Structures are given as C-alpha cells and as structure tokens.
C-alpha cells in the first residue's frame, strides 16, 4: 500500500493502517527526536505525541505538497522546538552530557579505543551546543537523508537559510574538534 492509501485508511479509522505507518517511520522519527533532544525519556514522549498527532490530524496531510515522512518530521520538529523552548536549554544540554558520559562508561572509557570514543563524545557534546536551527539542519540532512529542499520545508525555512545553517554548523563543529585535537 502507498502512503496515500494508508493515510486514507487512517482517516477512516483503520488502526492496522496506522500500525503499518508507525512501524515504517518509528526509527527515523525517534532518531531525529533523540538527536534534537539528547535524552531518551523525552524522545519517547515526543515520538509518541508525533504519532498521536498523525492519527488525529491524518486528514490534514496533503500528499501533493509533501511526502508523508517530510510531514511527520515537520510535526516532530515543531514538537521538539516547543519542548526546547519550554524547558531551559541548559537542562537539555546537561541531559546530553549525562547521556554521553553514560555511553562512555557502558563502552568502557579506559579501553584502547579511548581517544576515538572521547572524540566522539566531544563531538556529540558540540552538536548539543549548536543552536537549534543549526542542529536540526545538520540532523535532517546528514542523518535523516533529506534533500536541502525537503529539510527547508520541514524547518519552514528558505533553502538558502537552511544551507547557511548547515555550513555554520559544520564550521562550528570542525573548529571545536580541531581545538580539541590541539589540546590533546
């Protein structure tokens, strides 16, 4: 079944069509939310809310305007931005650092791979410190595989503004990583 057929079925209250959509898009939505929020609990809440919104607002999706994955990511993006604005940014940043530390402990921070793991942890923290729009642009284009045009639509930006955000994000990350390399 195509996305359009599935969504028409959802509009008619077909829960099995809804389940298929959830299974198809769960990973991409939860991964994007995690990369925006940096903690597992809020990621799960936002992902759940995204699919609840899909169920309630299925009739509002316009297939001629955007793909279903683009529409779903836009819902997730808006929910994440609302969340980040309601909660203090410091708290989210703290969450990211805690999760990175926990991941390092799980992977055995003192192993021979230590330098690489620490570099990755630093990079993850640097991503968490990026402004929301730069982080979101990077996540959508690098990890979620959206084209610049699609990512711009998700973020409700012009393509030029999105490209500017990506360029700034990468420059910022490269700068932080090179400073980190020099410090070592």
């Amino acid at each position, binding site marked *: 079944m195509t996305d359009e057929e599935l969504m028409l079925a959802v509009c008619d209250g077909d829960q099995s069509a*809804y389940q298929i959509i*959830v299974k198809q898009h769960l990973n991409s939505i939860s991964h994007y939310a995690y990369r925006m929020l940096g903690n597992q609990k809020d990621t799960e809440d936002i992902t759940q809310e995204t699919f609840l919104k899909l169920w309630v607002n299925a009739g509002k999706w316009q297939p001629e305007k955007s793909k279903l994955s683009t529409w779903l990511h836009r819902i997730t993006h808006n929910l994440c931005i609302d969340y980040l604005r309601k909660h203090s940014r410091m708290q989210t940043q703290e969450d990211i650092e805690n999760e990175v530390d926990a991941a390092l402990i799980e992977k055995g921070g003192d192993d021979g791979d230590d330098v690489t793991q620490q570099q990755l942890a630093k990079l993850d923290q640097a991503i968490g410190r990026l402004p929301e729009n730069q982080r979101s642009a990077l996540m959508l284009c690098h990890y979620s595989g959206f084209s610049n045009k699609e990512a711009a639509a998700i973020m409700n930006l012009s393509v030029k503004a999105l490209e500017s955000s990506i360029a700034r994000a990468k420059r910022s990350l490269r700068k932080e990583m090179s400073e980190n390399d020099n410090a070592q």
Partner: protein
Amino acid sequence: MRSSKQAQSRLALTMTTTMTLEEFSTLVDIHGSNIENWPPALRKVGKTLLENSDRARILRTAQRRLEQQLDQITVPEFTGLQARILNQQLPPRNGSLLDKLLDWLIPAGGITAQLWRPAMVACLPLVFGIVLGNYYSFGVGLEFSEVEYWEDELAMLSLSDYSESIF
C-alpha cells in the same frame, strides 16, 4: 528582491566557470565531501579546483573526517517504544457532527475551496437570522398570512427599490 535573485543567478553562472576556495569551502559544507552529490552545474569546476589546489584537498579531507565522525555517533535502542505507541489509547477518529461541518467549511486545501467555504461560513449568520425571524415574532404582531409574509421577506431580500411603488 528581484535584483537579489538576479545577483544569485549571476553568481551561480560565474561559479560554473570559476570557483574560489571560499566558495568551494561553503559548497563542501553544504553538499558534503562527495562532489558527485553536488548540483550538476558545479561538479566540473569543483573537480578542477580539487585537482589543482592543495588547499581545496585539505578542506575536503577535513570535511570527510567530520562526516566519518558524525556517522560513528549512534542512537540508543528504544526498546518498548513501538509497543508503547501501538498500545496507546487512540482518540476516536470520527469527529462530532460539528467537527465534520467545520472540516467541510474550512478545508485543508484547494484554492476554490479556500475561497468558497469561508464565504459559506459568512452566510451562516444571514441564514440563521432568516430562520430566527421566520419562527419568532419578538412581540411584533403579524396580520398577514404566512404566504404573504414570505413573499414580503423574499422581496426585501431582493433589495428592490420600493420608493416608486409607494407613490
């Protein structure tokens, strides 16, 4: 606005023949280290610069390294999330009659519907007023028969000029 677009297209045209290191750096940031993923018009000049400039190669290597590091950052498993979402209580899909009416009057898309249906909404108070006026006299006695009354109502709605028929 228009001159800005013209300037942009002039810049793009210039970049298809020559490219500075700064432009190359920006393009590498935007489209990635793999030049095959760049817009077709910019690939050739990008490759030429890459072949002839050590600095361009350094920029691309730095970008490639960052991309590889980004690829290594993983996301945890969300065990149980799928079950949690699929088992959550979903609100009923079929809305109330009022919701359906509102959905019809205020549609999601279509330029004709967007213009027509708000006009329909605007007419609702008029229809409501006619119905109300027909069923409630508000203390005003009506000496005419129902048929005559309706004829007067319709004649008034037609906005005809009665000034001549009075005299």
